[in-house]
């Protein structure tokens, strides 16, 4: 028999255990971490370069400065400050978008690697070891915080490398990183409150939505400017990079982030493992609706996420509608700026139709992401064994998959319809000139891109089921980024043409590009058919 190890060695072992937990957390998010860092650096650098091609003389800078007075532009794109500076311009163009991307990634990663792992039972065996749950949560937060700081450093490097001055870049990057930290901590906190990953993610996304709303209202309405002090996005904007570089808002944000992180770790210690602060009822009566067939069951699983996506998209497009008049009037009064906006990727903003068409093009991103997420959920249900009992029923895999495709398709049609209706409602409220058929056709115009996402997702499900999310969201998210970068960085024309967005007509400003829509639908159908073939042939991951 061996003698017990000396005390010193055991202490080392405890340190080793904590390092192992850190390594585990890092391993689970490393790929996403690299992507968000690269996006932060790349978009920042591209925006600085775009400033040179967009703003050619001081008069242009003055026209851009006139933006600061327009509430619609302030609401949608944030308060423009220091647009005469390349760095300031880059912050205005990319700051909010990057903060949202980093925030969404951080909160989803946080709930995935904490509550998701715990809920799947993989923490049980870890927590039976030496590492207590508070340390476990704290270590995971530390890793997420490090990645947020890395993404901030990426943005700083991108700005400075492209020629922006370092002082403002530092303030902006710090604000960006802190937004990531805040939402990582928020995700870790909701992961303590809710016992399932989906509820925790949903609650954290709601926090992000409210934060964004507070900033938008604070930016747009001068009297409510103080609302920005309540939002991490608002605090970041209040730091005014390249225009005073105020540190106070960032200090407040640091304190809030520290409190939230410490609170999440402490909260973990006062609950049951696999439980949350919100308890679910241990039993309920049966609800037998939509259990009659696999197709009906696909609809049943869709209802809740669809309601959440529709609410989010609907709220955003209602705001777009409400702002229509203010925005178009401003651009009609400032034709020089309309030109600039066109060069900066927002063409045709001068009319309500053009404005609506520009913003409807953005709808392709959430619509495509929605179908990609639906198919990724199906892949997860397969590898999680939840589909095994259904696969043992007398029905073919193709039937099950087609039921799922039909549900996702119905869902995305509903989401785009909600977006069209919400925009129309908003424009009606302010008396803007947008007919309902125009609003709906503009929203439905993005459906071919959503179909491409569906086709790519099904193809991935059939042949490379681990890559469903990546491939499924590629046509929408990847295509959008490609178009924006190709437009502003002077890449060869054909590179930009690879993006489906290059072939999307500005409906309702101009008629639908039917050949392109038809071609996209055809490609999507072929990809989906190839995916169904692969899905029928391959081994199931059960």
């Amino acid at each position, binding site marked *: 028999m061996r003698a017990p190890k000396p005390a010193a060695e055991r202490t080392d072992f405890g340190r080793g255990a904590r390092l192992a937990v850190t390594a585990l957390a890092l391993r689970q998010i490393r790929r996403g971490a690299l992507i968000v860092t690269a996006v932060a650096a790349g978009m920042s650098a591209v925006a600085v370069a775009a400033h040179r091609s967009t703003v050619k003389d001081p008069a242009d800078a003055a026209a851009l400065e006139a933006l600061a007075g327009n509430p619609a532009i302030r609401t949608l794109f944030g308060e423009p400050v220091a647009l005469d500076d390349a760095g300031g311009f880059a912050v205005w163009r990319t700051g909010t978008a990057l903060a949202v991307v980093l925030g969404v990634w951080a909160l989803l990663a946080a709930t995935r690697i904490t509550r998701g792992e715990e*809920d799947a039972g993989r923490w049980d065996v870890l927590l039976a070891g030496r590492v207590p749950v508070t340390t476990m949560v704290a270590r995971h937060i530390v890793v997420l915080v490090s990645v947020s700081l890395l993404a901030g450093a990426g943005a700083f490097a991108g700005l400075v490398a492209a020629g922006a001055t370092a002082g403002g870049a530092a303030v902006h990057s710090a604000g960006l990183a802190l937004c990531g930290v805040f939402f990582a901590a928020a995700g870790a906190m909701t992961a303590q409150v809710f016992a*399932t990953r989906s509820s925790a993610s949903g609650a954290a996304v709601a926090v992000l939505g409210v934060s964004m709303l507070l900033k938008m209202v604070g930016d747009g309405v001068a009297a409510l400017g103080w609302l920005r002090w309540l939002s991490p996005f608002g605090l970041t904007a209040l730091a005014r990079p390249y225009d005073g570089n105020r540190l106070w808002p960032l200090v407040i944000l640091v304190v809030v982030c520290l409190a939230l992180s410490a609170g999440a770790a402490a909260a973990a210690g006062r609950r049951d493992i696999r439980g949350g602060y919100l308890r*679910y009822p*241990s*039993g*309920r*009566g*049966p*609800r*037998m609706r939509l*259990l*009659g*067939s*696999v197709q009906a*069951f696909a609809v049943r699983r869709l209802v809740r996420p669809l309601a959440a996506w529709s609410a989010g998209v609907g709220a955003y497009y209602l705001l777009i509608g409400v702002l229509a008049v203010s925005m178009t009037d401003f651009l009609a009064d400032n034709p020089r700026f309309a030109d600039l906006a066109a060069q900066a990727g927002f063409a045709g903003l001068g009319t309500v139709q053009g404005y609506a068409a520009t913003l409807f093009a953005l709808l392709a991103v959430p619509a495509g992401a929605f179908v990609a997420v639906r198919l990724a959920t199906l892949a997860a249900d397969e590898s*999680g*064994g*939840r589909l*095994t*009992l*259904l*696969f*043992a*029923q*007398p*029905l*073919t*895999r193709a*039937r099950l998959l087609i039921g799922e495709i039909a549900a996702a398709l119905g869902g995305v049609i509903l989401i785009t319809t909600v977006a069209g209706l919400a925009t129309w409602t908003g424009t009606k409220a302010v008396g803007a000139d947008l007919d309902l058929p125009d609003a709906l056709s503009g929203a439905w115009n993005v459906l071919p891109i959503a179909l491409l996402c569906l086709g790519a997702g099904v193809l991935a499900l059939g042949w490379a089921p681990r890559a469903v999310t990546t491939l499924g969201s590629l046509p929408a998210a990847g295509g959008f980024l490609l178009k924006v970068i190709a437009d502003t960085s002077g890449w060869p024309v054909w590179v930009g043409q690879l993006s489906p967005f290059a072939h999307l007509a500005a409906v309702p400003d101009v008629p639908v590009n039917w050949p392109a829509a038809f071609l996209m639908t055809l490609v999507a159908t072929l990809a989906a058919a190839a995916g169904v073939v692969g899905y029928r*042939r*391959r*081994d*199931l991951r*059960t």
Partner: protein
Amino acid sequence: MVSPAFRTESLTKRYGRVLALDGLDLSVPAGEVFGFLGPNGAGKSTTIRLLLGLARPTAGRASIFGTDAADVAVTHRRLAYVPADVALWPQLTGAEILELLARTGPGTDRSYRDDLVERFDLDLSKPGRTYSTGNRQKVALVAAFATRAPLLVLDEPTSGLDPLMELEFRRAVREARDNGQSVFLSSHQLAEVEAVCDKVAILRAGRLVDVAAVTDLRRLHRTEVTVCFTGTPPDLAHVPGVQAVEMTGATSLRFTLTGPPGPALQELAAADVVSLAVRESSLEEIFLGYYGGTQR
């Protein structure tokens, strides 16, 4: 002759460089309870996945009641399955899961299902995520037995059940057999296999080692004999079928006997025997005999 419940011909499955199943030829007659034994990694679950059409064979074929296993819309009308690791939809209650499986399945005897729910003491109002391993298995077992399908494929269905529920499970298997159903039971619970199975197939490292009736298996295998003598025990080492002779005292010895006992009995008759005890091996001992000392 009745057609088999299922038959595999040179069924082979390769995962990359790993040969999980190597030319399995197995025929399970209809109406029998058929045990499927083998150590972990022997290929039992792979066989079941191929039978169910969840995975595609690299070579060979499997058919269920004469229909190719890949044609699941037909074959699954005549079978029900309980996976080794039951995962339920976390937000659906037990009652909702049973309803979903009943309405998408090959048909369900609802009164028998209610009876089984009662017997397995299953609380159907709880959502799937709150069920323990045993309770998840119970949900799948109730759903499978309630179909009264001609073939029940059960992959380690009782690993999470308590002894009382284990008895209920054996009762349900016997009811299925009395009903003319076939049961294919992959299990590590050898007592359970011994109690309910007519025949067993033993798999090792992806190959079929033996198929035999449980009673034959025991008879064909080693019987342990303990004998006490008045004087010095005779030398039995050279007797055919006698192995592992062990002196347990000055006048007693123990040995194992394989095959016909005649020669050993003749030898013993010549000696002065005080007492003789004969014990048949348990299935566990037979099982360990197959695998003992060797990997897989």
